[in-house]
């Protein structure tokens, strides 16, 4: 009897988590899918999806979210990796640098947006500094940019926020790396580039893959910085549409249906792109 009980202990300890996930994760998600597939009268239809896809802003929001995720992740990883390789040695002030590099990551997203508003408003500190340095004659109206340049603005802000922390993660990976592998490479006459390409990166790969995937997923859900810098609609993103239907027009007949449908679309896109990335990655490993 006691033995039987003992066998069940682990499952009892896991039960709260399992119940929590059924109640507050699986159940809402199923409800979301169900709600998105029914019309206001409750009968099954794909009308919500048709409406979402037909929304003129949908294509733009989808494109922006994708461009933002892909460009910012590639940009951040390439630069962060180069920085990490460069900084991967003990030097005076390395601790100070790592300490400072944590700051942007620690700033909450809303505060990041306020921070860059203080920079880019027409009397903001950026114009002030450039004026003092004699680079400009009159204040530049940064916040009036539109379209792709507004999007690149947001990518740059995101890079400022995320780059240091990505660098720290890669640096930690590099420092845990067994130096002997790399040294062996050099002994056999490999160039620095070859060692990085064929030894360092493959060993670091698990860290890199996880970090990229988590970054990609959160980049696809970007919205706040866009809205706080430029307001709704200037640079539409997928999650921005959800915020739009919850914050700006919460009382339309279809607000709830639209935001539910958008949330399902976002989830599908996020999960599918994560899977595609993992697939591509594991195929690359085999060859």
């Amino acid at each position: 009897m006691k033995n039987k009980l003992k066998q069940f202990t682990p499952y009892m300890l896991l039960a709260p988590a399992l119940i929590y996930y059924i109640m507050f994760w699986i159940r809402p998600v199923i409800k979301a899918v169900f709600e998105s597939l029914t019309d206001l009268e409750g009968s099954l239809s794909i009308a919500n999806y048709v409406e979402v896809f037909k929304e003129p802003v949908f294509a733009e929001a989808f494109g922006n979210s994708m461009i933002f995720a892909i460009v910012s992740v590639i940009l951040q990883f390439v630069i962060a990796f180069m920085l990490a390789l460069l900084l991967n040695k003990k030097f005076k002030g390395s601790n100070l640098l790592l300490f400072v590099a944590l700051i942007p990551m620690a700033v909450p997203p809303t505060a990041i947006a306020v921070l860059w508003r203080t920079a880019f408003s027409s009397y903001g500190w950026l114009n002030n500094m450039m004026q003092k340095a004699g680079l400009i004659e009159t204040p530049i109206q940064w916040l009036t940019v539109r379209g792709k340049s507004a999007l690149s603005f947001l990518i740059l802000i995101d890079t400022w926020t995320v780059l240091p922390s990505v660098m720290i993660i890669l640096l930690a990976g590099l420092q845990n790396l067994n130096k002997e592998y790399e040294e062996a490479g050099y002994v056999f006459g490999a160039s620095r580039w070859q060692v990085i390409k064929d030894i360092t990166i493959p060993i670091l790969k698990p860290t890199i893959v996880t970090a990229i995937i988590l970054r990609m997923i959160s980049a696809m859900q970007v919205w706040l910085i866009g809205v706080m810098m430029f307001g709704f609609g200037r640079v539409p993103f997928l999650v921005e549409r959800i915020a739009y239907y919850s914050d700006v027009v919460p009382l339309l007949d279809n607000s709830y249906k639209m935001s539910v449908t958008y949330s399902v679309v976002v989830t599908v896109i996020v999960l599918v792109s994560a899977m595609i990335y993992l697939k591509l990655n594991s195929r690359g490993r085999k060859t």
Partner: protein
Amino acid sequence: MNTKKLITRTLFLLFLVTMLIAILVPFFAFLATSLYSSSEVYQYPRTMMPRFTYDMKITWEDDMYQLSVYEDDIEDYELKIYTNSPEKLRIYLKKQYSVQLTDEEIVADFSKSKDGTAVYMQYKKDLLYNFKTFFTITSNADKAIMNSIIAAGWTILISLSIGSMAGYTIARYRIKWKKQINLSLLIVRMFPMVAVSIPMLVYLIRMGLNGTMFGLAIVYSVGNIALTAWITNSIFQGISVELEEASLVFGANKIQTFFKITLPLAFPGLVACSMYAFLAAWNDSIVALILSNSNPTLSLLIYKAIGMSGDIQLAAAGAVILVTPSLIFTFIIKNYINQLWGDVKF
């Protein structure tokens, strides 16, 4: 050879300094903005350092006080306002220069000019003016801070209790589907929480929890339970079972062993988990926007503040309040950052 070394060293140093500047200058400029008075915000061009004092000149002409303020760029006093109402002066000084004086102080200082000589005064700027004003103009700012703390507290409580139990189990017991459990924890962490929050609104209304911080914490905990399980799993794996066995051999029972041996060793990790939970709740705005728009958290309040008013220095003050705990906690948990990103093998 030596020159080449020197050049690389210099380049390296130059690069380091650039990086430090790129991170620190925006941050300090942002902090400085939260200390600017209204007149400084609209001064162009201005120095980045916020001013601490104002030199003012008061003269008495045409039965009115003439208030001039010393401006660095013209290196002279510039006439700003003339009035004979001390109240008007008080409001003007407060709104424009963050100088807080009472009517009596103004009369006492300013009336000396009535005999025809100019009075020169140096007034201290109230550096906390924007912070105080942030609380008075957004009438629910103190409530929003409390809301954020309460939501974070519930999130810590829920995710630590449920998550660490799961983490301990995965680390210590031989269970079926371990791999699947680990994978599902990862999927939960990747899952967009917006997709959970919108349908959760309906459930929360049904339970009478809509607009409450407990309701928000339920959603925040979804991802955080997984993260806590993930971190505690690796912590408990790192605590050697032999220590626990030794304690059992010496006659302690399982519960005593857990509280006397395992828990103290795991404590730093558990603190880190709580801080992650805190940050998740404290930094979020989309879940709060969907579930508790009329009873905002601090983060949501700042999001709204930037849309409402043009007073960037007030939003900056609010944002500084928001940043402070995040900054402190991030520095405390910096050694766990790698665990957040995980060394998962797919």
